[in-house]
């Protein structure tokens, strides 16, 4: 504690001496410090604020333009992607339509072929039937002739020559 008292005493003493020294000794230091400070402002303005400020401003304009460009490109890319997607969907729909048409065609052709085959089969069957009928007829005729001949022979045998005469 004594030390602090001593310090304060010293300060008070120095201040009390008057004229020279003390805490509130204002002299030519003040204006010279002001001038020195203004010179420092000018020097730092040339060495520090101007070049670095320019660098910062340049960079921010660079970034801003780049960002704008990038955004534009992004928008373009998005539009392109959308367009492609639409085209893709369109193409898919078309291909599906083509597939459906082809399937329908194929079914029609198949149905037609089946119908034709059935018709042909029918025709062949009918023809076979007709041939069978004809052969049956012929066979019947032949049988009738044979029946005639046989019956005449039987008659001959039974009646002998009398009848012939």
């Amino acid at each position, binding site marked *: 504690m*004594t*030390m*602090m008292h*001593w*310090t304060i005493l*010293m*300060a008070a003493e*120095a*201040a009390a001496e008057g004229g*020279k*020294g*003390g*805490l*509130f*000794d*204002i*002299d*030519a*230091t*003040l*204006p*010279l*410090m*002001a001038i*020195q*400070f*203004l010179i*420092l*402002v000018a*020097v*730092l*303005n040339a*060495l*520090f*604020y101007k*070049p*670095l*400020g320019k*660098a*910062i401003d*340049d*960079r921010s304009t*660079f970034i801003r333009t780049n960002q704008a460009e990038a955004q534009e490109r992004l928008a373009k890319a998005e539009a392109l992607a959308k367009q492609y997607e639409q085209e893709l969907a369109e193409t898919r729909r078309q291909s599906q339509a083509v597939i459906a048409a082809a399937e329908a065609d194929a079914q029609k052709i198949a149905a037609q072929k089946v119908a034709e085959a059935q018709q042909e089969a029918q025709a062949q069957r009918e023809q076979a039937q007709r041939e069978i009928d004809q052969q049956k007829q012929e066979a019947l005729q032949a049988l009738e002739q044979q029946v005639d001949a046989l019956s005449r022979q039987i008659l001959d045998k039974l009646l002998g020559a009398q009848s012939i005469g």
Partner: protein
Amino acid sequence: MEMLNALNVFHSLPLAELEVGKQFYWRLGNLELHGQVFLTSWFVIALLVLASVLATRNIQMVPAGFQNLMEYALEFIRDLAKTQIGEKEYRPWVPFIGTLFLFIFVCNWSGALVPWKLFHLPEGELAAPTSDINTTIALALLTSLAYFYAGFSKKGLGYFGNYVQPVAFMLPFKIIEDFTKPLSLSFRLFGNILADELVVGVLVLLVPLFIPLPVMALGLFTSAIQALIFATLAASYIGEAMEDHHGEGHEEH
């Protein structure tokens, strides 16, 4: 008797000395200067100029190292000026306000970080330039001049209209304000820095090891805050002087 013995003990310790109000006088013609203030302020100025040269020697689009640090400082200063003065007018004031901040900041921290006491002067001792009342009054008066200049250059004689805004009744208070502004600016800075140095000095005197460290850290904090306060107030005074009272109303209609 005991007191005298105690005094002798202190005088015999090499580092534990505390000098207040003693100046290292230089003579320039019939002018008297505080040499220790100029010596440390030249050190600070050299530091600032060196930092500026290092930062701008090779400016890169993508900043690195020292340029980065100084750009951070510049952006901080610009932000400070912009918030106080306004987007439209702040640019020409950046060098003044920025130099106020940087000079005071480096002065204060040099006082706290550089072991000035190791350099012996014939009289007085080296300390932060801001712990001398001349420096702070010089800076405060420059701030006053700056805001007067800002007001007159913006509005001409219409600047006097500020004194009767918002009511004519305010006139005497506004005039008193012109005196209290530099007074408070200079004494706040001076008092804080000197008090910080004295507290650290007294503590070192009492307990030379470790105990003063928290106070020193607090001193670093106060020093930075004081620099910020001085620069912010200077910017706000300038902004206030340029504020357009009539314009705002008219623009709305």
